[in-house]
């Protein structure tokens, strides 16, 4: 049974003049204990999708899905309150800019303490304060912060980005989630700190069997850490499969281009020659192409591409393209 099963999720921005389909019928499924990467350029709707899953989008965004199952429960049948309580209990999320995601006027200790559900605490109400404090210290140790007394007393602006991100992870762990959504957890971070955060996430995945949805724009970097990868482009589903499938045998021209644009996959390339890139840039939301949104930039585009392709499934390797690269391998 899938942990998370989303079919044809669309996110629409309704403005006075026009309705913009920011995310167009994307499907995503996750198994228990899996680390799935969600890859796409900036503006491809990855963060929107993540925020829609956890339900923190503003009122101006309208989310619609054909299927939204969580551990076999059909969340679309539940009302908003029930859905929210289930999601908040089982799913946690960490955000792009950890410093901005922590309340600047509240100490780290308080922010951590309020994330701990009082159902986890036993004992009478006069014992709870002490238990809560101990739980906060345990959480900080879990994410590798040793100087817990200093950390509890400080405000977010007094800590570094990497420590803030560790605190965010600690807050996320407080509710003992089954799925952790990490939305570019290492953006604007030094590479040593990036490695630490990723190692921490990987160890959590192995020790606690916690599933992780890792969102990133950097395909090459996250392949070390993921089991499966979903690729998005401009709000549309592109390709999904295991990391090996995506990296070694990409079926979609866009994934092909992504892989080709990374230096590691092109070691045989002569020095000082240009890397392969697609012409143009990702379209802005106001001027989205019809059909397959990669169309204007795609090297294999033909007339049929003005209609959005159906998802084809080759042994779990899903691709959404009329002219996939299947026959070239």
């Amino acid at each position: 049974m899938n942990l998370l099963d989303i079919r044809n999720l669309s996110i629409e921005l309704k403005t006075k003049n026009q309705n913009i389909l920011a995310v167009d019928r994307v499907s995503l499924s996750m198994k228990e204990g899996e680390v799935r990467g969600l890859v796409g350029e900036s503006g491809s709707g990855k963060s929107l999708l993540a925020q829609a899953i956890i339900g923190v989008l503003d009122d101006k965004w309208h989310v619609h899905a054909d299927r939204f199952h969580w551990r076999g429960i059909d969340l679309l049948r539940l009302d908003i309150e029930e859905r929210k309580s289930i999601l908040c209990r089982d799913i946690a999320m960490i955000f792009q800019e950890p410093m901005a995601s922590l309340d600047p006027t509240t100490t780290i200790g308080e922010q951590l303490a309020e994330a701990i559900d009082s159902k986890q605490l036993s004992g009478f109400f006069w014992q709870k304060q002490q238990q809560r404090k101990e739980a906060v210290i345990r959480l900080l140790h879990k994410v590798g912060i040793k100087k817990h007394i200093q950390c509890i007393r400080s405000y977010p602006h007094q800590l570094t980005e990497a420590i803030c991100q560790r605190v965010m992870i600690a807050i996320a762990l407080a509710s003992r989630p089954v799925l952790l959504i990490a939305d570019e957890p290492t953006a604007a971070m030094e590479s040593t700190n990036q490695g630490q955060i990723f190692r921490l996430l990987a160890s959590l995945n192995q020790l606690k069997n916690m599933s992780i949805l890792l969102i990133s724009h950097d395909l090459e970097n996250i392949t070390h850490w993921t089991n499966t990868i979903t690729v998005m482009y401009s709000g549309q589903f592109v390709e999904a499969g295991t990391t090996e499938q995506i990296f070694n045998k990409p079926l979609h021209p866009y994934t092909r281009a992504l892989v080709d644009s990374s230096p590691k996959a092109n070691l045989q390339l002569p020095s000082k020659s240009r890397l392969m890139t697609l012409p143009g840039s990702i379209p802005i939301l106001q001027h989205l192409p019809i059909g397959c949104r990669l169309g204007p930039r795609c090297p294999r585009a033909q007339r049929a591409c003005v209609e959005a392709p159906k998802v084809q499934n080759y042994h779990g390797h899903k691709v959404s393209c009329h002219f996939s690269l299947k026959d070239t391998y």
Partner: protein
Amino acid sequence: MFIFTLRRLNLFIFTMLVLTLISFSLSYLFPGDPVINLSGQLNSSEEQLALLNENYHMQDNILWQYWAYIEHIIQGDLGLSMSSQSPVLNEIMILLPATIELSLVALLIAMFIGIPLGFIAAIKHNKTSDNIILSVAMFGYSIPVFWLGLLAILFFSIGLGWLPSAGRISLLFEIDIITGVLFFDILLSDSPDKWQAFQDATTHIILPACVVALAPATIFIRLARASMIEVLETSYIKAVKAKGLSFKQIIFRHALRNALIKIIRHVGLQFANLVTIAMVTEVIFSWPGIGRWLIESIYQRDYTAIQSGLLVLSCFIFIVHILTDFIYAALNPLARGNKHGS
């Protein structure tokens, strides 16, 4: 925190120096003899005039004159009022507390009504209640204060007869002046009917304080609404939502303090505006405060009173500014403590 206090104190001293410079230069800019403008002694004989010139160093250069003026201020000698020939300082000490009382009560009313209404409007952003609050705020902001004061007297005092229209307290009560702030004086006095006096003083302050509070309250509504909307869109509120806190918890634990921080500095800025409104209101409600006294001094060309009144009033406003700065620092951890590399 110590350095923070020291810096505010430093700022206070230098601002006061500039203010004394302005009020000193006024004695030259006003018509008449500068020494008489400074001292206010109109009918002095030749010998007295010579003594005054000696005291204020009028024969020396202008820096010495300024220094002598500051010395006089520090000793508490602000000269005599030209119209009443009594020391200005004594008059101010009686009148200023009345203005402080009125403006602080008005500020509290404005804050306690304006800020919560603004927050409600922000939480119900783009809904009917938001629109209603905004249009009421716009309407309130556009009413001129003197007209509103007259209307309030006409309606509440004359029409309905609920509230008295003039003065601080009914003449029946005899309260000795100890602090100058009437409410404290009433509580300190040993008059047998002090609770009646307290009630009476309260009914007297309601109408003028509400009239003064209206314009600042509407500004607070709009400030509070804007800052709350801003805070509710930040990513830390999103993160808190993802934590699973209820809406009430989000507002009271996280949004409120961050939104208040953005407003509190504007409260200090608005206070100068509020005192100006209070001066006009004092005239309408015959409130025995410094604003009415200052306006009367301008009519009577009482130059000594104008000089000293301006000095004392701006000093008061500046002290309130510094106080709001301290409240700001208490609420905002980013403002206190030393910053490195920023």
